[in-house]
């Protein structure tokens, strides 16, 4: 069912379901650095930069084409969270903030087939025709339990590795979507699609030049007894063990520049080992960084979210040098500490991203 009414209240509730209710961003430990440590340095310039570029690009190519520069909905949900506090700091009025938020919601609508707030617990991005083609052409029966366990290991490795590379912005570089009701060999199933768009970015100093895996798309059909519950930002929960309820699988990996299907266990095992080794190297290297280096790393990852807009405007996506110098000189400190009960903190957390509210009370 399409539901594209652009409501700030529903946007607030969607962010709440994805973050506050699940502790995704509100827990004290966010690896490798909490975004609030950088709020006083990054929020305002990043929001201003985005606002100016967004107005220009929207005027040039229109909202629908601008949405395509972001590629998939989760980047845009993250952009709401990354820009709303900053737009308040730079003094943008309530009316204009609401307009920006509704424009972003409209862009999310262009990139989705289903309810943009995932209020129904579903993250429907692809059309029925597109998912039907996948089920028709890409799937094979699961070979044995070991095959299912390997698939689970691959998915766990992908989540970890993506986080090792992109840190707290990782949900903007993958999209997990579904559950699409599907028929597989006369049986009812649900399709979950896991897409990891970029696994060897050269943008950050991660030494991934020779890492052979560029991207992975995995398609899994699960028994209908498994109930999935999606929130925005593309994470989900489920009621039953996934490996035991996997029926059929398909997928492809861009490996050394070529697209390869990964239906056999040997190749899956090789992919898992490669990802585990690289995850270990990358996460260890990140954990060895100083607080200042982590802060600079997060500034780069934030600006990387708007690289396609910058490219379209013939600008560099790299963050302004002045920001980096400021971190090097002054360091970072946690600036968004909130007092009060869990409920009060949650409300203030959501107030930060609510364009109707000027600035949350302390």
């Amino acid at each position: 069912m399409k539901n594209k009414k652009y409501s700030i209240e529903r946007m607030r509730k969607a962010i709440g379901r994805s973050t506050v209710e699940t502790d995704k961003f509100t827990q004290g430990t966010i690896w490798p650095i909490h975004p609030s440590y950088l709020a006083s340095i990054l929020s305002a310039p990043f929001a201003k930069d985005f606002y100016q570029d967004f107005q220009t690009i929207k005027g040039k190519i229109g909202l629908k084409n601008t949405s395509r520069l972001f590629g998939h909905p989760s980047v845009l949900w993250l952009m709401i969270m990354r820009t709303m506090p900053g737009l308040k700091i730079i003094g943008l009025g309530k009316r204009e903030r609401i307009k920006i938020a509704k424009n972003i919601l409209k862009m999310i609508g262009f990139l989705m087939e289903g309810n943009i707030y995932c209020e129904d617990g579903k993250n429907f991005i692809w059309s029925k025709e597109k998912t039907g083609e996948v089920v028709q052409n890409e799937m094979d029966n699961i070979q044995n339990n070991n095959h299912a366990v390997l698939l689970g290991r691959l998915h766990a490795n992908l989540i970890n590795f993506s986080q090792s590379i992109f840190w707290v912005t990782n949900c903007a570089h993958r999209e997990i979507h579904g559950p699409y009701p599907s028929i597989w060999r006369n049986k009812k199933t649900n399709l979950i699609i896991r897409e990891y768009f970029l696994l060897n970015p050269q943008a950050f100093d991660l030494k991934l030049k020779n890492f052979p895996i560029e991207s992975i798309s995995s398609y899994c059909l699960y028994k209908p007894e498994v109930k999935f519950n999606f929130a925005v930002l593309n994470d989900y929960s489920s009621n039953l063990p996934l490996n035991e309820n996997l029926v059929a699988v398909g997928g492809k990996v861009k490996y050394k520049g070529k697209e390869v299907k990964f239906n056999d266990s040997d190749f899956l095992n090789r992919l898992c080992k490669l990802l585990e080794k690289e995850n270990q190297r990358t996460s260890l290297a990140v954990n060895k960084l100083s607080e200042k280096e982590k802060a600079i790393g997060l500034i780069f990852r934030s600006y990387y979210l708007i690289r396609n807009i910058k490219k379209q405007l013939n600008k560099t996506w790299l963050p302004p040098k002045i920001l980096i110098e400021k971190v090097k000189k002054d360091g970072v400190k946690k600036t968004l500490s909130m007092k009060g009960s869990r409920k009060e903190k949650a409300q203030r957390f959501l107030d930060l991203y609510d364009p109707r509210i000027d600035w949350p009370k302390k």
Partner: protein
Amino acid sequence: MAKKIILKGVAASAGQAVGLVKVITDPKEFKKFQEGMILVAKITDPEWLAVMVKAVAVVTNEGGLLSHPAIVCREFGIPAIVGTVKATKVLRDGQKVIIDGTKGSVYEE
């Protein structure tokens, strides 16, 4: 006879497992973790993949339904209980326990 619940938390990844507890408070202790153990930690991050891949279940003090240990264990297909607040204090190395990731309960074996 009903088993005694020794700890409750958020039911983050469905399924049951039985095993010996290993409390890990620092990545330096990863070498002590053996295949088939139950990982008990404050929270996990990508570096912890090295031990999570060997675990039969994971229990953490912090985290919610979409925290790192929760989403990773669901993909691995192993039970997980998160947000217990005090798992690293209540559970002891070598203790044999039953993890019920569907109910969010840890039982004494």
